[in-house]
Structure formats: structure tokens, C-alpha cells
């Protein structure tokens, strides 16, 4: 189970943030890995006038 601390306040009108020291990273979730691979493929092709790609 993820270790991210639950936010108990559900007041939708005021955004609040809790920094969780022991949050589970999702960086290696299969969906994320697949999505990042696809994003890298698309983004690597984009030409930015101010940057030369080496």
C-alpha cells in the first residue's frame, strides 16, 4: 500500500498542501515508465529555435 499521508481536509475552496516525508514514489510504476518512454520519443523530435540538439 502507498505510504502517502492522507489529506483529511476536503474543503474544496482552499487548496492546502501537506509535505509527506515517506511518500511512495510512483516513478517506476509500469504506466509511468510507459508514458515517460512515449513522452521522450515525442519530445525528442520537437525543434526549439533557441536550442541546438546535439
Amino acid at each position, binding site marked *: 500500500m502507498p505510504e502517502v499521508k492522507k489529506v483529511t481536509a476536503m474543503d474544496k*475552496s482552499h487548496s492546502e498542501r501537506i509535505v*509527506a*516525508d515517506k*511518500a*511512495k514514489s510512483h516513478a517506476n510504476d509500469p504506466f509511468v515508465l510507459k508514458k*515517460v518512454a512515449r513522452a*521522450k520519443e*515525442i519530445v525528442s523530435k520537437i525543434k526549439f529555435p533557441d536550442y541546438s540538439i546535439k
Partner: protein
Amino acid sequence: MNLERYPYSVSNDFQDYSFYSDGPKGKIKKTVLYIKIREKPIIYNIAFGDVDPETGEINDDIISNNSDMDIVLATVANTIHDFSDRYGNHYIFATGSNRVRTRLYQINISRLLDEISIDFEVYGVIGDQQYKFQRNVNYDGFLVKRK
């Protein structure tokens, strides 16, 4: 964006955000994750989806229909502010896991474009080119950058 939004928790590296959608389907945990995918210029990918209660992993194939899409999108936008405060105003790339999902993102950006454009530059990507985002154009993905 001056819209309602949910409170969220964030990992101490400010790259992994979680919050609960609250609607007719109950409370659904969602996660927003930023991962650097290019150096020049610096671009981060944003991955967003529901957290599977069984596996604890992100999945964006689920359509929640929790009647709170604008609040969810405003919350995601708020995480971009938080992330940018920490890492700088870099490009953030978003695309769906499939064409239908990407189209859904496009529809929602179009719908909220005036609101989004107050704080962010928004571009659409087609092939190797980026264009200023326009409604009724189909894109491969989207780049946003805080102004």
C-alpha cells in the same frame, strides 16, 4: 486559476503529488508525477492518473466520472505552480496514454483555455513542431510553461 481545487500531499522532493477526488463515486485517489525528460530546453513530463487501490500504482485508463473534472484540473494546475516554485518555470509536457485520452485533454484545455492562459503559456505539439495552442486543432501532446 481562480477555480475550486482539492488539498493535496506532496513528496519531499516536490515531484509526486496526491489528492482525493470527492464526488458521487466516492473518494478516488489521484496522483500527479513530474519526471525530467529533456535537458535543452528542460522539459518535464507530467503523468496523471488514478491510484489503483489494489496495487497502489497509477493507472490513467480509468474514467472516474466523479463529476468534479474542473476541480481536479484546477488541482493539477495548482501542482504545476507548486512544482514550478521549486524547480523553475520549465516546459511541462502532457499527452494521453492513447489518442482518445489525448483528445480528452485537448477538449478540456480548450474549454478552460482562457482561465489557463492567465498563468501559463500553452502550446500544442504536432510532429516536430510546437504551436501556440488553438481550439479545434488535434495535437500529439501539449506543452505548458508558467509565465
